[in-house]
């Protein structure tokens, strides 16, 4: 068996031979028992190999891989520092510094709470939707502002390595009350303006991870966080719609526990 024979066997086994040449090649191989046996061997091996199921990373492995690489490549210095500090203190360190565009965000958010109630107090879904949308838009604007600033005023609003130091964050108003009823009334009555003391960026992924462990908050997402307690920043307030009702709840992220919950 020479090199040409091997090429021919490989081409046949891998179906790489042009269709017009297959018949002649098969005939040539069939006329030589040694070549025919080699072709059969190659085909048997290929059949066994290609039957192997695909391999892929699990979701947890993927997340770990990304996080490790980001840390090793210094793509997220603030996250690393915050995580280390959080591990030490277990509390405030998980909260990020207010975004550079915070005032603009607060204005938009407050605008949402002031304007939307005029649509009617019973229209909780519309309230929720509008507020959430504006929160998202405002948060996006804030991120963009940060990115541009970090890029040294570059015109392209791209997320830079420096800007990406912040984890996926959303900006929510801080409110100076720890009573859910008061907060709820403020939210409904549009008087958040008087309670607002700026805004705070929170780590969306962390909020989501906690919410998912609380069955009472089934149906809620990180985007449903509408405010943060200014005095105990681990406490977040959520409003979301579940089963046709608007649910308001407060959650202590430090312990990932439900503090209060009401439905209307």
């Amino acid at each position, binding site marked *: 068996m020479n*090199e040409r024979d*091997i*090429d021919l*066997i*490989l081409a046949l*086994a891998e179906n790489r031979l042009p269709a017009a040449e297959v018949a002649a090649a098969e005939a040539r191989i069939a006329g030589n028992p040694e070549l025919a*046996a*080699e072709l*059969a*061997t*190659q085909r*048997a*091996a*290929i059949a*066994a*190999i*290609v*039957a*192997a*199921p*695909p*391999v*892929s*990373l699990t979701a947890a*492995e*993927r997340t770990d*891989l*990304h996080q*490790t*690489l*980001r840390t*090793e*490549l210094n*793509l997220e210095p603030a996250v690393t520092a915050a995580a280390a500090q959080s591990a030490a203190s277990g509390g405030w360190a998980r909260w990020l510094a207010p975004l550079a565009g915070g005032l603009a965000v607060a204005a938009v958010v407050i605008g949402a709470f002031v304007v939307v109630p005029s649509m009617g107090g019973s229209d909780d879904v519309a309230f929720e939707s509008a507020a959430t949308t504006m929160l998202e838009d405002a948060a996006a604007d804030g991120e963009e502002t940060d990115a541009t600033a970090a*890029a040294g005023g570059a015109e392209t609003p*791209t*997320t*830079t*390595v*420096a*800007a*990406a130091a912040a984890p996926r964050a959303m900006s929510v108003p801080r409110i100076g009350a720890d009573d859910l009823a008061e907060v709820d009334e403020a939210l409904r009555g549009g008087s958040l303006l008087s309670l607002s003391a700026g805004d705070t960026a929170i780590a969306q992924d962390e909020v989501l991870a906690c919410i998912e462990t609380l069955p009472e908050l089934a149906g809620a997402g990180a985007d449903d966080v509408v405010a943060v307690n200014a005095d105990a920043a681990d406490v977040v307030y959520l409003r979301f719609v579940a089963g046709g009702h608007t649910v308001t709840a407060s959650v202590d992220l430090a312990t990932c526990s439900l503090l209060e919950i009401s439905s209307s």
Partner: protein
Amino acid sequence: MTDRTHLDVALIERYLEGDVDAFDELMRAHEDRVFAICMRMMRDRDAALDATQDTFLTVFRKADRYKAEAAFSTWLYRVTMNTCYDHLRRQQRKQADRLPESHDPPDHAAASSLDAVELRPELEGALLQLSDDFRAAVVLVDMEGMSLDQAADTLDVPTGTVKSRLFRARKQLAHILGNRDTPSEHPTEAP
């Protein structure tokens, strides 16, 4: 160049300019294939994860050295294979250090069957009995669907060498899997 190649080149440029989103996109595009190659080259999942991580660390740390004349994927998979070879050599050194002289060689087929849950145990065992070079040819061409030329680029060897390794590797595999008679030739590599 293919669309994927153009996209990868653009993403590398963006990454080098500091765009972290480009890092995420590159990872999403290539991480599963890199892991699959590592998983099939290494002896267990943890080792494959380590090799995958080291591969991407090398690639992103040396991204500025990437020359766009070659496909990014070729460069990436070459780094992947080199990383796997490095890890395999380290594994072998550790095993050699640990084992007494009279110790029998490990039965990879048995030892790996529990770890390699993604592959059929008998195939995994057979693959692990191949030399690293033979296994690399099978993994890249038969499992990852590379052409002979692509595999040759990735392994940095002539195409003829890949052909030779592939031919002999399959022959050994078929024998190990019980499909064929014992190979008549020693599994050494043709030049």
